[in-house]
């Protein structure tokens, strides 16, 4: 796994995760203990367990597990109940209300959503009826609240698939059925993840090659690395086709010396500030 653009998928139940694990060919990360986690490349899938506390803890745990990298893609996938929406239909959340506190969140979707959107009411105790015309689940509010601390809101989304309604009560849900309706929506899930990942790429731009090379050759402190990043960004903007000739510098230079050299180069070179 490299350091950037992680995608974190979280489900409450193993049966919700099963088709996703198969589809994305994820492998169990045996060394990870408190929450069952699967992964491949920059994708993680965590089975959190039911309820807000488990979900909140899982989000925080996964964020720290990958090094606290900001602006990753976060997606909560799960089943939910609704008065009348057909079983198997998928909805992205446009409003999430925590039924216990009354607090609301409004996930922003600056892209064409791959399915309809709906309001979610997150409850702590399973409901046997559906008092309002919204989706009912048990994790979304906690997921959203905590994931928003680690990423910008546009990259944090909830996708719920209707598992029960007035005609198909929740008591009849089986793990097999939950897996089936998640699997039936893989195309929608793929499309949503793709859109989230494109957004993430916009705000997590690549560093130029010479930046990575410098980090490999010379040692930089944390604050020097920030300076190096700023310089490389500036350089990329005003002189993208003419990278600094770092090869000529001695390998035993300190990070400070490299930064000093780069600053002199910037000051002496004619950088292109024209919009033309």
């Amino acid at each position: 796994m490299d350091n950037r653009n992680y995608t974190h998928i979280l489900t409450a139940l193993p049966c919700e995760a099963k088709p996703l694990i198969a589809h994305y060919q994820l492998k169990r990360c045996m060394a990870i203990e408190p929450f069952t986690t699967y992964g491949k490349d920059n994708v993680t899938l965590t089975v959190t367990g039911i309820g807000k506390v488990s979900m909140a803890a899982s989000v925080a745990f996964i964020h720290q597990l990958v090094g606290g990298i900001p602006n990753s893609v976060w997606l909560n996938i799960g089943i939910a109940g609704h008065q009348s929406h057909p079983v198997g239909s998928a909805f992205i959340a446009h409003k999430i209300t925590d039924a216990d506190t009354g607090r609301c969140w409004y996930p922003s979707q600056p892209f064409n959503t791959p399915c309809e959107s709906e309001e979610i009411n997150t409850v702590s105790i399973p409901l046997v009826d559906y008092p309002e015309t919204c989706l009912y689940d048990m994790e979304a509010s906690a997921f959203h609240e905590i994931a928003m601390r680690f990423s910008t809101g546009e990259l944090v989304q909830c996708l719920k698939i209707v598992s029960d309604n007035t005609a198909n009560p929740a008591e009849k849900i089986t793990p097999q059925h939950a897996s089936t309706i998640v699997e039936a929506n893989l195309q929608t899930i793929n499309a949503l993840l793709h859109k989230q990942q494109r957004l993430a790429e916009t705000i997590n731009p690549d560093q130029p090659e010479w930046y990575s090379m410098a980090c490999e050759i010379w040692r930089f402190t944390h604050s020097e690395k920030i300076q190096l990043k700023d310089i490389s960004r500036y350089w990329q903007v005003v002189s993208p086709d003419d990278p600094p000739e770092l090869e000529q510098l001695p390998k035993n230079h300190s990070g400070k010396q490299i930064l000093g050299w780069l600053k002199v180069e910037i000051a002496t070179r004619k950088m292109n500030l024209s919009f033309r």
Partner: protein
Amino acid sequence: MIETIYIEEAIHRHPRAQTILARFPKARKITCQRYGEVFNPKSQNFRLQKRKPALILAEKYKNPVLPAPPGYGVGSKHNYYFSHMLNCLYDCRYCFLQGMFQSANYVLFVNYETFQKQISEIANATPEQEIHFFSGYDCDSLALEPVTGFVEAFLPVFRNHANAWLELRTKSTQIRSLLDTEPLSNCIVAFSFTPEVIAKHIEHRAPNIQKRLEAMEKLQQAGWSLGLRFDPMIYQPDYQNQYQALFKKIFARLDKESIHSVSLGSFRLPEKFFTKLDKLYPEEKLFAGPLEKSNGMVSYESTLEHDMFTFCSEELLKYISPRKFYPCTVGQ
């Protein structure tokens, strides 16, 4: 254009909210208690939201009309601004709104009557004094006119108060509602400009200079007073040629008599806003320019800023009378 509309529950039944909702039958409608729940959360990315901004219909409760900052004005000692809307249809890279607001969604305060009442109160309090009201501070005054009906609703208020002047500040060509009504002597339709190359690169989604000039010509023919706003001035290595060409082009098309005022301002941002913009658009050349930080503000290096200001002032004064020229000194 608008695919998502958030509506404060309290104004759901407001006639203006109903009219706007009817205009977008396919948009998803989401209710909220207060617009700040959607607009203010920190964890939002202006750049990402700008791809597909939502419209938020809200109610303005407090301070609908505020005194303008010192140094902001075009001839009156008494200057106020009001914002019926927050955020803009366009995406100009120098715009301070990107640094000021967390969200790129458009907030429209539908209770125009609250603004109008206070404007009337201020105008009535000193009927012998000229008072200017600026409407394009937190938004473009005209860009969303077909949806907001702002001009149509506010011109009658100013018709009733001869001492109250309205400035509409815009880059928009949405001038139909102005052309459909008798010109108002106490209204200035002010258009903002930067040179063509700059506009093309950093005034995303805004009408090009040609179209803005065509709109100005139509308004001029209809008898409206016009304003020219070169604020902010943007540096380019050949800025002299670029601004010279811009002024030449504009004054070749417009009758100087119909120009009420010309203002000029430097590129200046509070440091906090600048830092946010720079993070949002790390690839942007504008922010890599010859800038310096001083007293919590980011602006061009003082010598350069002075040179640009002097050059552009001298060039403008070749075309207009000094009495129509208003260098903007906000923050200086």
